[in-house]
C-alpha cells in the first residue's frame, strides 16, 4: 500500500514536470526532475563540454605554423574560446550533481564520447578555415536550437556560446575565401579541405531521426527542440550558397535544389564510417585521448601547488 502511494506520488510528479516543461518553462538545478532527464542532460552536456575541449587539439596543431601574426592571434583567441566553452558546459553539468573529476575520468577512459569530427586530422592551413566555417558552422546550427533547451544552466551556456561562435565561423570562411583568391595551389588546398570536412560535418548532427537512440525523451522534455535531420538540412541550405560565392564545389554529386520542398536534396551519408569512428576507430581517437591525459597529468603539479598554497594561507590566518 505504502509502495503504491509512493509510486502514485512519483507519477503525479512526473506528470506535472512534463506539463511544466511542455509549457516551455525552464527547469533549474534544485527543481525536482525525473532521473532520466538528469542522466540524459549529464550525458549530453558533458559530451558537449568534452567536444569543446578535444576540439582545441586539431586547431592547436597549427598555432606555430599560422601564416601571419594576425592569423596566429586569431587562432589563439579562438582556441581560448573553445576552452572557455568547455568550462561553461562543465559548470552547467556540475549543477546536475556530477563532479568535474568524474567527467574527466569518463572522457579519459572512453566512457563518455565527444564529437566524432575531432578524430579527423588537420592536415593543411586550409583545414583551419574549413573547421571554422564548416565544423563551427554546423555546431552553431545545433547550438542556436539549444538556446531554448529546457534546462536553465544549459540554455544560458548556449546563449553565451552562440554569441562567441559567430566570430569562429566568420574567421574560418575568411580563410577559405582568401585562399580561393590565391594561387592555383592554394585554391586546390581549399577545395581539398572542403572535400575532407564536408561529410564529417554533416555527420555532426547525428544519425537520421529514425535511428537516433535518445530522441523521444529528449523531445518530450524539451531538451531537444529540433531533430537531427532538420538541423542538418538547415546547415546544408545555408552553406551551399556560401560555397558558391567563393567558388568551392560541394563534394556531393547528388546535391541539388528541390523546388518543391524549398531545400537542397543531398546524397546518402556514409553511416558505416560514422559508426566506425564513434566506436574508436577513427584516424585519431587514440591520439586525442592520449594527449588529453598527458596534458592533464603534466598540469597536476599546478593544482597541487594551488592546494598547498590554500592550506598554508588558511593556517596563517585562522
Amino acid at each position, binding site marked *: 500500500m505504502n509502495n503504491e502511494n509512493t509510486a502514485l506520488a512519483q507519477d503525479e510528479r512526473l506528470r506535472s514536470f512534463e506539463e511544466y516543461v511542455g509549457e516551455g518553462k525552464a527547469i533549474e538545478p534544485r527543481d525536482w526532475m525525473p532521473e532520466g532527464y538528469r542522466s540524459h542532460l549529464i550525458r549530453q552536456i558533458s559530451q558537449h563540454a568534452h567536444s569543446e575541449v578535444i576540439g582545441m587539439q586539431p586547431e592547436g596543431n597549427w598555432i606555430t605554423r599560422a601564416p601571419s601574426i594576425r592569423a596566429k592571434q586569431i587562432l589563439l583567441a579562438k582556441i581560448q574560446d573553445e576552452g572557455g566553452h568547455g*568550462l561553461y558546459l562543465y*559548470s552547467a553539468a556540475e549543477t546536475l550533481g556530477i563532479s*568535474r573529476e568524474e567527467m*574527466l575520468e569518463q572522457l579519459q577512459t572512453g566512457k563518455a564520447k565527444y564529437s566524432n569530427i575531432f578524430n579527423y586530422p588537420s592536415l593543411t592551413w586550409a583545414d583551419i578555415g574549413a573547421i571554422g566555417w564548416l565544423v563551427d558552422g554546423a555546431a552553431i546550427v545545433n547550438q542556436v536550437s539549444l538556446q531554448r533547451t529546457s534546462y536553465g544552466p544549459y540554455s544560458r551556456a548556449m546563449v553565451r556560446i552562440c554569441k*562567441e561562435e559567430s566570430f569562429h565561423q566568420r574567421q574560418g570562411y575568411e580563410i577559405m575565401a582568401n585562399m580561393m583568391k590565391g594561387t592555383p595551389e592554394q585554391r586546390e588546398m581549399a577545395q581539398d579541405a572542403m572535400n575532407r570536412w564536408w561529410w564529417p560535418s554533416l555527420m555532426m548532427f547525428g544519425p537520421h531521426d529514425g535511428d537516433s537512440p535518445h530522441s523521444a525523451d529528449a523531445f518530450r522534455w524539451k531538451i531537444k527542440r529540433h531533430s537531427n535531420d532538420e538541423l542538418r538540412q538547415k546547415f546544408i541550405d545555408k552553406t551551399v550558397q556560401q560555397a558558391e560565392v567563393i567558388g568551392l564545389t560541394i563534394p556531393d554529386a547528388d546535391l541539388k535544389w528541390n523546388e518543391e520542398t524549398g531545400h537542397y536534396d543531398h546524397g546518402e551519408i556514409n553511416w558505416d564510417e560514422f559508426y566506425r569512428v564513434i566506436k574508436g576507430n577513427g584516424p585519431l581517437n587514440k591520439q586525442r585521448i592520449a594527449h588529453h591525459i598527458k596534458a592533464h597529468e603534466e598540469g597536476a603539479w599546478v*593544482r597541487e601547488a*594551488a*592546494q*598547498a598554497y590554500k592550506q598554508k594561507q588558511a593556517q596563517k590566518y585562522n
Partner: protein
Amino acid sequence: MATDSQLDLWEVFIQGRNGSHHTHAGSVHASDKKMALQNARDIYTRRGEGSSIWVVPAVAISASNPEDAEAFFDPADDKVYRHPTFYQMPEGAKQI
C-alpha cells in the same frame, strides 16, 4: 597531500559597467580568491563584458528551496495594494 583535485567551486557575478547590477554569469574552479578572480576574468570577460567581478565560494551561498517556493513567496500574493494600478484615480487628473 599530493591528491589531485579540480579545486573549489566559486560563483561569478559580473557588472557590465558602472551603474548596472552585478549579475550571475556562471562558475569557476579555483583554490583561492585571487585565482577565482583571474579565472573569472579569463572565462567570462574575454570581450569587455565587465568592469567589475565578484566571486563567491559556492558553499557560502544560501538559496531558497524550490519545493517551498509557493509558501515562501505567498505573503506577497494578497497585497495588490502594493501596485500603483490598484488605485482609482479621479477622472481628468493628469501626470499621476
